């Protein structure tokens, strides 16, 4: 691991300003993904800004009847919150389908959104990777791509966003609140937060240099039955091959987002509208532009079958 200096931020705006002051600086919260990547020298920050002291660790009710989740709320705490379990069950289900108990105790809400892909070629510094080393090429295109993306990808990178939590947040129409180094704040819809990266796969989100996530907000509850169904190579502690986050109402209408298939949680309003017509109709639209490899083409029928299972549970 490369040496780095540290500082502890006094306020969110102070942290964002500090990130601009020092070249090569990064924020650290739970550290569960960043430290792993630093050990492999895939991430090489020269300065870490420890944001754990900032008071961003509570979940409060918003004026519009939703919830504001502090950026530092740990995954376990978020999934356990009584209001989340009652009104946003898909979020609890998604978080608890990811990682291990140890990791969820440390991982933060903001950090979960910013975790890097688990593409094996991103993790192997001997291999070309446009995400890790822009312009070096993509070893995954001709390599083992079983785990990788089928839709929203590009010729430069076919990685996926690996998270589960973000897929649920997408189906709940969450927004990401931030503060910039100049002190300005903004809210970014989660729908826009992760980029479809095209030929710049090293730029994964809309965050500007130094911009710090302060919270994630949820609109008021939408009712319905909540599902997060995750298909993976083992029953626990593995990344999704395909996951389905869905909120389905009594009349069969609803919302659906897919995980494990794209650079971001994959949801299309045109596909949502077809939920009453069944899984095949939804998937035909949501994956109309899919460009799978021979190794991961199975993900499209798997997505359809997983959604069909969710719809069947919703009807029962």
């Amino acid at each position, binding site marked *: 691991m490369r*040496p780095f200096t540290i500082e502890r931020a006094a306020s969110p705006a102070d942290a964002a300003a500090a990130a601009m002051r020092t070249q090569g600086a990064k924020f650290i919260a739970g550290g569960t993904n960043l*430290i792993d990547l630093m050990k492999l020298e895939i991430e090489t920050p020269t300065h870490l800004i*420890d944001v754990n002291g900032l008071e961003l660790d509570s979940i409060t009710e918003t004026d519009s009847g939703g919830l504001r989740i502090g950026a530092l709320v740990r995954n376990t705490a978020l999934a356990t919150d009584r209001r989340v379990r009652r009104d946003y069950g898909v979020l609890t289900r998604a978080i608890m389908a990811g990682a291990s*108990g140890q990791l969820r105790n*440390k991982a933060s809400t903001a950090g979960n959104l910013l975790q890097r892909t688990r593409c094996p070629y991103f993790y192997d510094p001997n291999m070309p990777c446009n995400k890790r080393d822009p312009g070096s090429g993509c070893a995954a295109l001709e390599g083992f791509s079983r785990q990788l993306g089928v839709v929203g990808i590009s010729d430069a990178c076919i990685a996926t966003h690996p998270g589960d939590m973000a897929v649920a947040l997408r189906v709940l129409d969450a927004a990401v609140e931030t503060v910039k180094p100049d002190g300005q704040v903004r809210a970014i819809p989660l729908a826009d937060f992760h980029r479809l990266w095209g030929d710049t796969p090293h730029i994964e989100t809309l965050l500007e240099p130094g911009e710090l996530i302060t919270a994630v907000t949820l609109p008021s509850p939408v009712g319905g039955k909540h599902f997060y169904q995750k298909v993976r190579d083992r*029953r*626990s502690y593995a990344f999704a091959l395909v996951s389905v986050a869905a909120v389905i109402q009594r009349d069969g209408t609803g919302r659906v987002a897919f995980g494990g298939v794209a650079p971001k949680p994959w949801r299309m309003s045109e596909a949502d509208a077809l939920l009453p017509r069944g899984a095949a109709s939804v998937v035909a639209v949501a994956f109309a532009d899919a460009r799978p490899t021979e190794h991961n083409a199975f993900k499209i029928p798997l997505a359809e079958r997983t959604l069909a299972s969710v719809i069947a549970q919703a009807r029962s």
Partner: protein
Amino acid sequence: MADSDLLKISRRGMLAGSAASVAASSVPMSVALAQAPDVATPPPSADVAMTVNGTRAAVRVDTRVTLLDLLREELQLTGTKKGCDHGQCGACTVLVNGERINSCLSFAFMHQDDEVTTIEGLGMPGDLHPMQAAFIKHDGYQCGYCTPGQICSAVAVLDEIERGIPSHVQEDITDRPRPTNIELRERMSGNICRCGAYSNIADAMADVAEARA
């Protein structure tokens, strides 16, 4: 490196050096040489004080030192094991302020004023924690390498169930979880046992949970 420098290398320096060479083996040699640390400038360090197994520990550490390496190399608490060092195996699991974490994925400097409990703090021969005794009774290990992490995790799992923390296998997430076999197995999935003692570990945990109920 001059011979006189070689003589000054400590055990810790040797370990750090061998760890660096493992990391370097995955990058071209020319890159590894170019990145050789400058021995003249000491790397950045930080002061941190925490309570470990009830005893105050105040140390100055390289900012890169993980909680795991602090416990093992500075405090000589070698019960906590280094398995994968990447948060995949759970051998390094310890309790921090009562919650289990992977100590390999946490920098020591981030634990100011924390209360850390390792396997040595749970119990020692002659004064075993009930979970340690149950692992012995149920043969919850073979080689024993993952066992300290398994036991720390197991203690935390029963506490998490008592506190109502939900899990992936719970049918109704608004309900109180119960320490069923499937619940225990799901909640222990972050602790890998190469010897495959899983069923006996779950039995040991069920025994402790039953005694508490």
